[in-house]
Structure formats: C-alpha cells, structure tokens
C-alpha cells in the first residue's frame, strides 16, 4: 500500500518555470491530471489544456502546434486555446462533446501557476508571491527534480530543517541546526505555517562559507514561510557571529538568501520538487552562481534519494504503523493539519466523483 497524502483541490500549483513553457508542448501531470502547456504565438500567453485527445486519448503533449492550435499527432483532431475542437478529419460535423478541459493559468514571479479544481473559483489574487524570483538585483539558480514519493514527505522534509545536520552534513548542515529550538506559528486564515530557527553562534557550512567568503562562526537565521499547499519560502540570513541588523532595519552586514520550493503533487506517490536559490549579494559573480547551483543540486539530490527510499519503505509497512513525533516536528505537524483542512475544503464543491 503506497503512502499517500490526499490532494487539495481548488488550489493554485506551480506547473513549470516560465522559461519551460514556450512554443514546444510541455506535458506535466498535476494532482493526477495530465496537462499540456504552451504559449500563444503573438502574445506569448501561457495556455493549459487537458493532455488527452477526446478521440482516442492520445497525449496532446506528444503532438504539434499549428499557430495557436494543437493538432493531435495521431488523427489530427485540432484544438484552440480554449480547448474547443475546431477540426476533425474527414467530416464537417464536429461532435459537440469534442472539447478538452482548459485550466486557469497565471504567469507570476517567473513561475507558471495552474488552478486545479473548479475553474469558477480560481482567483489569481490568492497566489502567494515570490517576488525575488523576478526582481532586479536578485540572481536565482533553479532546477526541478521529480521524486517518486508522496508530496507529504517533501512537506515534512522542508518543514523540519533539523535533517540538514544529518542528511546534508558537509553542505548546508552543521550541528547547531538540529540543536537549536524552533518557534512555530500558524496563520489559520491565510493557511501559512511559519517556523523560525535563529542560531546565534554556529559553524558556517561550506555552502555559505565558500559563497560568501565568511571565515569563522556565524549568526544564522532560518525563517520558513510555508504557503500551503504549494509554495515554500525559506528566508535565510547569514552574518559573522554577533553582526545583527541595524536599528533602522537595514542590514549591511548580513547575507540574505531566499530559498524557494514549489511542492507540486503529480500523482499518488509522486511529486515535482521545484527548487530555487536567490541572492542579492555577489550578484555579478558567476563563480558563486555556479557554486550555489552545483552545491544546492547535490543537496536536493540527497533529499530525492532519501525520499525515494522512504516512500519505498513506507510501502512495505503494515496498515496503521506508528510514527513518533518530537519537538522538531512541531512545524511539520502544523503543515499536515493545514493540508488536511485544505483537502477537506477542496472536496466540498459539486465536482466530487463517487
């Protein structure tokens, strides 16, 4: 029995990076729904349609574009940007049911967001922001790894950074991460979980020592802001030990790094792990950029390997196996509960299929 967390419908999810969606068809499965993405020719507007031809279910993502229309690569059924079929081969009459679903889609902060659920409820104002991903003065390295694990395991992983000490030792983990108590806050109405860990006097991990050039011990702050279900922001501040922000709020002695994840459930037991590291320091230093890209990719792959293994292992457990939670799990438990509420709310509308 695979370990699965139910999906929260009627929510926005990151489907792709903006640069991934263009004039080539891109297929992604989100919450078990196969989707195809592309951009229109003139305006460059992103389009999201169901990725199955109504005729024989051929994947439209493996087909081709004719202007702004997708022409099914099997028998030529042709769809416009709204999903309406505008051509079928050999006959004039187009059956009324010849339509694929179209999905609300928004491009924001260099991300392509798609609404999974009742399209009538989609409100772009509800999409959480990550402005640093597309702001002057910031440089971002990014990647995406599909993981063969339940998305709930990735949420657990990211909400409890004490694992950095053990899984990512020698990269971003030092003893102080696991040793330092956390503060957890839940904003119930907004669906946000915040977890803060402020280390006053910590070893500087290689990830930051080599990129910032700081020698010696550091003050290290990790402030997580998880906008359930998809967007995870980790505001990281590093400074030589004892160097704090000024009274007026300015912080010339601190290095600020924004670590962003989009946690997008793909199917049961599968998740897309979009990872981004943004900085507003040493922005013109390509060596730092490449170091952060390579180092963070290694860290992400350590998580991928661990979560693939964990998913496999949980699949062999008997139903009703026990877990044990301790203080480090306070934030992760909060996230699980918020997700459970969103799942419940997303199941309420009329779409429910029994």
């Amino acid at each position, binding site marked *: 029995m695979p370990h699965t967390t139910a999906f929260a419908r009627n929510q926005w999810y990151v489907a792709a990076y903006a640069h991934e969606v263009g004039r080539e068809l891109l297929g992604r499965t989100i919450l078990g729904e196969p989707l195809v993405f592309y951009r229109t020719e003139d305006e460059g507007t992103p389009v999201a349609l169901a990725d199955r031809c109504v005729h024989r279910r051929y994947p439209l993502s493996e087909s081709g574009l004719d202007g702004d229309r997708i022409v099914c690569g099997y028998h030529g059924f042709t769809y416009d940007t709204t999903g309406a079929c505008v051509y079928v081969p050999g006959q004039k009459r187009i059956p009324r049911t010849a339509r694929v679903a179209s999905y609300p889609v928004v491009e924001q902060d260099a991300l392509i967001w798609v609404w999974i659920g009742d399209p009538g409820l989609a409100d772009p104002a*509800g999409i*959480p922001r990550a402005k640093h991903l597309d702001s002057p003065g910031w440089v971002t390295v990014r990647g995406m790894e599909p993981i063969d694990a339940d998305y709930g395991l990735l949420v657990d992983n990211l909400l409890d950074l004490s694992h950095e000490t053990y899984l990512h030792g020698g990269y971003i983990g030092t003893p102080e991460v696991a040793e330092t108590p956390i*503060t957890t806050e*839940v904003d119930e109405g907004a*669906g946000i979980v915040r977890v803060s860990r402020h280390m006053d006097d910590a070893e500087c991990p290689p990830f930051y020592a080599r990129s910032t050039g700081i020698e010696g011990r550091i003050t290290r702050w990790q402030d997580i802001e998880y906008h359930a279900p998809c967007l995870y922001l980790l505001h990281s501040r590093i400074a030589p030990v004892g160097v704090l922000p000024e009274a007026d709020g300015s912080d010339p002695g601190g290095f600020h790094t924004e670590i962003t994840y989009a946690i997008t459930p793909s199917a049961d037991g599968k998740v897309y792990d979009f990872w981004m590291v943004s900085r507003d320091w040493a922005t013109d230093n390509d060596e730092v950029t490449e170091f952060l890209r390579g180092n963070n990719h290694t860290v992400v792959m350590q998580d991928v390997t661990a979560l693939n293994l964990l998913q496999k292992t949980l699949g062999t457990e008997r139903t009703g196996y026990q877990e044990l*939670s301790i*203080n480090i799990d306070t934030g992760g*438990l909060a996230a699980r509960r918020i997700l459970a509420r969103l799942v419940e709310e997303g199941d309420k509308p009329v779409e429910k299929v029994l």
Partner: protein
Amino acid sequence: MNGPLTQGPREIYRIDWLPGTDTLHGTCHCGAEHTDQDPIEMWEWMLAHPQGHQPQGNSS
C-alpha cells in the same frame, strides 16, 4: 487558496520551544497559554479551542 488578505481577525497559533529545555510553550489566538513536552498533545490542546482554554484554568 485563502490569500493573506482574508477578511476578519487573524487567528495565529504560536508554539515556542523554550531554549535550554524540552518544553513547548503554546499560545492560542485567544490568548490562552499551555505548556507541554509533546507536540501532538500541544496541537490537540491548541485546536480544541475554546475547550480547556479558560485563563483561570492556568491549563499548563
């Protein structure tokens, strides 16, 4: 998704892990406080609001 601009008063739950101890100190959005050494029991207390949250109970 409920955006950050959701109407009405914010409901903020907070749990501090007290430095140098194994103790969690929780504050409900209503102001009630509680201490515990188990995060699951802490969340159960928190989410039971308003049950057991009477300030006079000094529920820790």
